[in-house]
């Protein structure tokens, strides 16, 4: 499963959904995330920290699905070190249009600090 979900808390104790992404992310994976954060679901409007491993790829259908998720999460901090994966996420952000509640970071700590500082 390219997405591993874990419920945690930010350093300041706010609810956090941690996602570890690896491998080929398919539409089914993207929909599994959608099911966790859709209205009425447990993780709806939560802060999310997404740790995306080097080599992670997104299928065409998954790429097209992700923009639907924007109103369902509070904010997403994406921790990514691979330039190729970063480029892929940047491309998906272009598909989404403006995504003020999604930002890329090169360390987890920076991402968590940003999530903690946000008023959601």
């Amino acid at each position, binding site marked *: 499963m390219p997405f591993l979900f874990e419920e945690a808390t930010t350093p300041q104790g706010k609810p956090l959904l941690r996602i570890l992404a690896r491998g080929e992310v398919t539409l089914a994976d993207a929909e599994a995330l959608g099911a966790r954060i859709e209205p009425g679901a447990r993780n709806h409007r939560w802060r999310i920290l997404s740790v995306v491993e080097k080599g992670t790829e997104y299928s065409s259908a998954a*790429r097209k699905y992700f923009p639907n998720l924007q109103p369902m999460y509070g904010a997403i901090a994406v921790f990514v070190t*691979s*330039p*190729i994966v970063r*480029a*892929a996420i940047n*491309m998906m952000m272009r598909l989404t249009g403006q995504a003020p509640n999604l930002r890329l970071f090169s360390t987890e700590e920076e991402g968590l600090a940003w999530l903690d500082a946000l008023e959601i």
Partner: protein
Amino acid sequence: MSVTIEGERIDQLLRIIVAAATGDYELRVPLVEEDDDEFLEVELGVNYLLEELTLGKARSDGQRQQLEARAEELAHQQSELVQALSTPVIAVWPGVLALPLVGRVDDERAATITAVLLERVTAERATHVILDLTGVGTIAGNTMPALLRMVRAIGLLGASCLLTGISPPVAQQIVALGATAGGASVRALAQLSDALAFVLAQKGALQR
């Protein structure tokens, strides 16, 4: 924004774009982790575009195959329907078959009519066949002999054949071939109803 890009990366990208422009969507720009610059996003974007083109082509091919299969199926159904409609053999009385022909009769249709009609004559032990040509405008040049051969074949099966509704052009064709062309004795009447009355009288089914 200013980015310095190695010529090789640009050449490679252009080669792949040119290939795509000729319909080859299978190539991908090789992505290298060390190329950590804005151009990497362009290269990845081209790959995404190629991926969409590949998917679109696959969808298009699939739809085309479905359409072709459907067209073939419809053509087959149409052919069956046309064949059924082109030889509407009706049993108008026990032992009496009528075949009203409509439209143009060419060699292929004449062959179909002959095959269907002879089969019905045998199956129903018909004594009379009424071939109504009211709806036939023209008969293709070599087809009249074929129809007259059919009349003779019906005779060989022990049934009599009557022609009705012969138009002036068709009458001229028959005369040109001789009224008993190929040994086929042709009895003609004006209308289908006349032929039916004639046959029923022969069978003693009508009071005269």
